[in-house]
């Protein structure tokens, strides 16, 4: 069971011709339009797009919390009709249960699946040590830092050996230092476990550092603008951010995002702060 989920045999997500409309005050608002892409099994797929593009909507559709208006989402050839234990989602805000200790939170999934409590706790303890939380097993969620919560949350998802791990801007809101640390921890986890991953972010550096493939989204209505392959070697380290290859990829991604952010800006809907940030980043590239 463990072996066949390693190194890319399962978790192929195919998003084909997906569109999503919401009614806002009785008027249609097209969020996604004709989105087609694959989340390749065993790879770390990163989804990046300007804020306000339908990144979270896409995650919700794949997770099964919402259904597409048009098109379909398949996992290993089976159509997604609702949430399931084959997909685990980690959101930006913690959804760890505050009334359970970290270890109880993490062992929750296996215990629900019928694993005896003792061995579920053993698995949980092993995973906690992998994300650097040894010694915090019996703390409650609110008694540990935000970064620790995020790591525990990833562990809670991973322990269930899902086919696909979905992460919706999981490190957003952390300070720069802890974010860097989180990325390192996450890279080690991914490289050890090899679970198919879709990682949503709006940070270009994060995207390139983590990704095997970067899927760049266009601005409203959201579609896939481009897909870039990242051929940096694994295991990745944060020192790779200084490689010329990295800079090249960053430049290309920024150019794509810049065009999209500009579109949003012209429409008067994108946050101008985001544009400023992108422009500054571009200037620093030159």
């Amino acid at each position, binding site marked *: 069971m463990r072996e066949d989920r390693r190194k890319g045999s399962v978790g192929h997500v195919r998003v084909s011709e997906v569109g999503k409309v919401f009614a806002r005050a009785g008027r249609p608002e097209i969020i996604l339009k004709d989105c087609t892409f694959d989340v390749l099994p065993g790879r770390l797929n990163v989804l990046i797009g300007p804020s306000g593009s339908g990144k979270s909507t896409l995650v919700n559709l794949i997770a099964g*919390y919402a259904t597409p208006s048009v098109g379909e989402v398949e996992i290993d050839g089976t159509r997604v009709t609702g949430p399931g*234990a084959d997909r685990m989602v980690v*959101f930006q805000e913690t*959804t760890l*249960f505050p*009334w*359970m200790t970290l270890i109880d939170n993490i062992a*929750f999934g296996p215990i*629900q699946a019928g694993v005896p409590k003792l061995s579920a706790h053993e698995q949980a303890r092993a995973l906690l040590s992998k994300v650097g939380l040894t010694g915090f097993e019996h703390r409650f969620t609110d*008694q540990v830092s935000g970064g620790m919560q995020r790591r525990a949350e990833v562990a809670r998802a991973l322990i269930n050996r899902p086919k696909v791990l979905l992460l919706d801007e999981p490190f957003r809101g952390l300070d720069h230092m802890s974010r860097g640390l989180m990325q390192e921890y996450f890279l080690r986890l991914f490289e050890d476990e090899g679970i198919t991953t879709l990682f949503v972010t709006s940070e270009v550096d994060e995207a390139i550092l983590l990704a095997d493939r970067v899927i760049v989204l266009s601005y409203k209505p959201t579609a896939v603008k481009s897909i870039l392959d990242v051929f940096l070697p694994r295991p990745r380290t944060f020192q790779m951010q200084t490689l010329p290859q990295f800079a090249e990829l960053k430049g290309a991604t920024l150019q794509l995002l810049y065009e999209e952010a500009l579109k949003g800006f012209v429409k008067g809907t994108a946050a101008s702060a985001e544009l400023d940030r992108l422009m500054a980043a571009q200037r620093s590239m030159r």
Partner: protein
Amino acid sequence: MTEVHTGGGRAAERVVRALRDPVLWQGAIGIASFFVVWQVLKWIGLFALLPGPVDVVRAVPQQMEQEGYWLSWLASSRRVFLGFLVAAILAISIGVSMGMSRKLRMAGFPILEVLRPIPPLAWLPLSILFWPSPEATMVFLTFLGAFFPIFINILAGIDRIDIRYIQAARSLGAGQATLFWRVMVPGALPALFTGLSIAIGITWEVVIAAEMASAQLGLGYLTWNAYMSQSLVGIVVGMLSIGVAGMVSSGIMGWIGRNAMPWRRGR
């Protein structure tokens, strides 16, 4: 929340530090001046009827030795406990069923909303007529006082459970029973305890009034009896006893709450 986690040495240090704290001294000054003003008013002759603090302190042992004092504690506590228990059981079961079933809520909630604004004590005369014994009357009133705060709070608590917790639990493979016991119950617990601690305060209030009107024993009766025999010292001692009783019950409630919700400690 101040809780002593460590043993003797640290505790002693803590006491010393607490004694040096200006907040403590200023508080002591406040309370002391309250009693001084009270005593001075007494000497001047304002509120001449009132006993001074010295009279009260002197009378406390004698009042406490009087026949039925401790029995009154017992009687009142029993009424509060019974009424509170029945209210908690009913309010929780009705609240949870209405929290889970929309139809039940649409049918039942409006009636309870109509009954809720009627002050519990307004039910007193009717209850005296209706219930066969004064004891049942008082327990019923206590129940009425405690029911609505518990009911409203548990309902609000269920409504306010974050949908993301439910989604997360579902994704992790939780079934209906697990969802209820491991997510809904702990999620609604803080609101429930808010309701319970409001309710325990109201039960004392109601029981006192009911006892004044219809009891033969109890702290409210004690106070009323002192009034009938024009013993002002007795009245004040009765009031103080009631205050202490209320504080002790709230303390117990808080203690239970902290132990039932260990994750909220230190907040």
